[in-house]
């Protein structure tokens, strides 16, 4: 441990522990997932940064969307995201979740991921190199330090808007709302 971090550890141990033990949900979508096995294995070794891949969303707090998102995948993404425990961070990887990328006129992929779930960080590129994942992660650390990686709080606060967007696409989603819709905004953003 870096000795200069001691003050931070004493001030907010929970935040520091969160920051250095990101558990990534091993969720594969699109072509970007081809970059994730080298990231988490010996060549680039994501465990240096405290990132581990976990099997189920209920054990994870980092959600990487690695590529284009088709409608069927989006439904799975929403379900996965809602099952993850707070605090949780979403990072969109590649240009397709940002604005559609090369699938900008496709009939079956969504164009803007942040209309449906909150996104904390973006890694641009097609494809981004594994190094870019680590740059993204160090940026995410900074955001967590400053309390700006607040996607899960935004999801709670603006749940009605997110749910409305999801239902505009799917009609009936098939599961009840995660949060009651009449929750006051100031109470939700604790």
């Amino acid at each position, binding site marked *: 441990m870096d000795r200069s971090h001691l003050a931070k550890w004493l001030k907010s141990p929970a935040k520091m522990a969160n920051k250095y033990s990101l558990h990534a949900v091993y969720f594969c979508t699109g072509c970007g997932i081809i970059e994730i096995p080298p990231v988490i294995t010996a060549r680039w070794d994501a465990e240096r940064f405290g990132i581990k891949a976990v099997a189920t969303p209920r054990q994870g707090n980092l959600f990487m969307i690695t590529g284009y998102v*088709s*409608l*069927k995948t989006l*439904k799975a993404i929403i379900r996965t995201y809602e099952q993850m425990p707070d605090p949780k961070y979403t990072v969109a990887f590649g240009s397709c979740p940002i604005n559609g990328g090369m699938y*900008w*006129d*496709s*009939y*079956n992929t*969504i*164009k*803007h991921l*942040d*209309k449906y779930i*909150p996104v904390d960080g973006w890694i641009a590129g097609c494809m981004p190199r594994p190094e870019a994942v680590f740059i993204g992660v160090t940026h995410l650390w900074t955001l967590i330090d400053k309390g700006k990686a607040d996607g899960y709080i*935004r999801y709670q606060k*603006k749940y009605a*808007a*997110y749910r409305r*967007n999801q239902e*505009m*696409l*799917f009609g009936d989603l098939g599961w009840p709302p995660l949060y009651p819709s009449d929750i006051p905004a100031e109470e939700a953003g604790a």
Partner: protein
Amino acid sequence: MISSLKKSLESTFKGVAVKEPEDGSISVLAPKDSLPVVIRYLKDNGLHHLALLSCLDWPERGKFEVVYVLSCYMPSNTDYAPDQRLHVFVKTEVPREHPALQSVIDVFENAEPYEREIHELFGVHFAGHPRLTPLFLERHYEIPPFRKDFDTRQYVAETFDPIPPVDE
């Protein structure tokens, strides 16, 4: 093998046109009524493998062209002869209005997902298929999305663009 197959196909079936062989492959144009018989005949004559089932849209001709790609398994290395390498493309045309074909599942069982996919993406009906339910798509599309008259840009503008961003 190629030339004998061409001859026997033309003599056995009426209305079947066989193009000149090219690079170890021949294409067979079969009318849609005799298609299952032709496929069955080819299977009995050594083409044991349905490699692909595909569809093309020709709006100016008002036709869908369904293509069956058949190939034969290689004989073992010792008795391999170059002229036994063979691909057969069986093509058949169906009208764009109410397109329907006879399913070939009873000949090639692995045609089942292909036929389901073509039914979903082109709207071609396969008579005798046990379940023509959606395979890949999540939403319902008025025009099946792989048809040429499906305007993807207009669809994107109508479906995805009106969804508002969530303000921070």
